[in-house]
C-alpha cells in the first residue's frame, strides 16, 4: 500500500455507501427498471429505497421518470451517463486501492 493512500480519497462516497452501491450495481446491469422491481430485487422498504434514490438523483447519477400507466403510478429508473461513468470510475478506484495493498 502506498504510504499516502491517496486512492482512497478518490472513492466516491456517495456510491460507496452499501445500500446505494447495491442500487447502482443493480441499475448498472440493466437498461432501466421500475421502483417495484428494484424494491423486490434489493429487498428494501419503499421509504429507504426512495431516500437513497433521491440522493443519487441529486448527484445526477439516476434519472427518475414518474408517469402513469393505465391510471397507475409508475416510476422508471435508470442510470444517467454520468452515473455509469461514476460507477466505472468507482470500480477502477476501488480496484486500485486493493491492488496497492501489500500481499
Amino acid at each position: 500500500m502506498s504510504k499516502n493512500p491517496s486512492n482512497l480519497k478518490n472513492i466516491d462516497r456517495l456510491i460507496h455507501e452499501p445500500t446505494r452501491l447495491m442500487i447502482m450495481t443493480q441499475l448498472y446491469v440493466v437498461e432501466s427498471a421500475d421502483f417495484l422491481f428494484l424494491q423486490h430485487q434489493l429487498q428494501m422498504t419503499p421509504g429507504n429505497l426512495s431516500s437513497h434514490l433521491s440522493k443519487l438523483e441529486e448527484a445526477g447519477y439516476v434519472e427518475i421518470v414518474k408517469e402513469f400507466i393505465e391510471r397507475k403510478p409508475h416510476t422508471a429508473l435508470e442510470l444517467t451517463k454520468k452515473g455509469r461513468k461514476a460507477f466505472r470510475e468507482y470500480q477502477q478506484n476501488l480496484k486500485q486501492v486493493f491492488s496497492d495493498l501489500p500481499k
Partner: protein
Amino acid sequence: MNKTTSLKEVEKRTYMSYHQDGLLDIFVGVYVLLFALGILLMTVTDFSTWFVIPAIFPAIMVPIWVSAKKQITMPRIGYVKFRSRGANRLMAVFLGLMVSGLGAFAVFTFASSQGWALTLRNLIISNGMIIIGIGAAAISSLFAYTMGLKRLYAYGLLTLALFFTGQFITIPFEYFLLTIGLVIIINGSVLLMQFIRKYPLPQGDEVNVEKPL
C-alpha cells in the same frame, strides 16, 4: 475481489428473477407440444398443414408472452428492461444455431454425391435419435448458460436421456417430444403457481406504495 464476475452474477440473478414466473417454460413447452402434435397428426391423418401451426407459433407467441408478462409478472415484481448486450448475446446464439443448421443442411445435401459424406449421413441417420438428443441438449445448455437459467440444463438432460432411450426402443419420435413438452409445461405451471403465491398482487392503495421522491 472479482467485480466482473460479481456484476455478471447480478445480471444473471436479475434474469433469473424475471423468468422465475415459469411463463417462458410454458411457452417453450407448448411449442414442443405443438411440434409433436403436428408430426403426429401428419403421420396419422396425412394432413400436412398441421405442421404449419408450430411454424407460425413463434410469430404469435411473442405478443401473447409480452401480454402475459404485463398481466402476471410486472404487477407483482415490477418491470425491468435488459441492456441490449444481453439481447445481442441471445441473437448471437440464434445466429450461431442458424449457421450451424445451414452448414449441416449443406453437408447433408453434399452427402448424396460424396463417399465419405455419404458414410457420415448414414451414420447420422442410423443414430438419429441420439444425435437429435445431443443437439437439443447442447442448444438447451447454450441458452441456460446465456440466460443463467439452470433449469434449462435439466430440460436438455431430459431430452438427451429420452432420445438416447428412444434409439433403442421402437416408440415414435413424436411421443418423446410430447413427453418433453408436457414435462416442461407442468414444470412451468408449478413455477407460475409458486410465483403467484410468493408475490400476491398488491391490494388497493398498496399499488401506490412508492413514496414521493
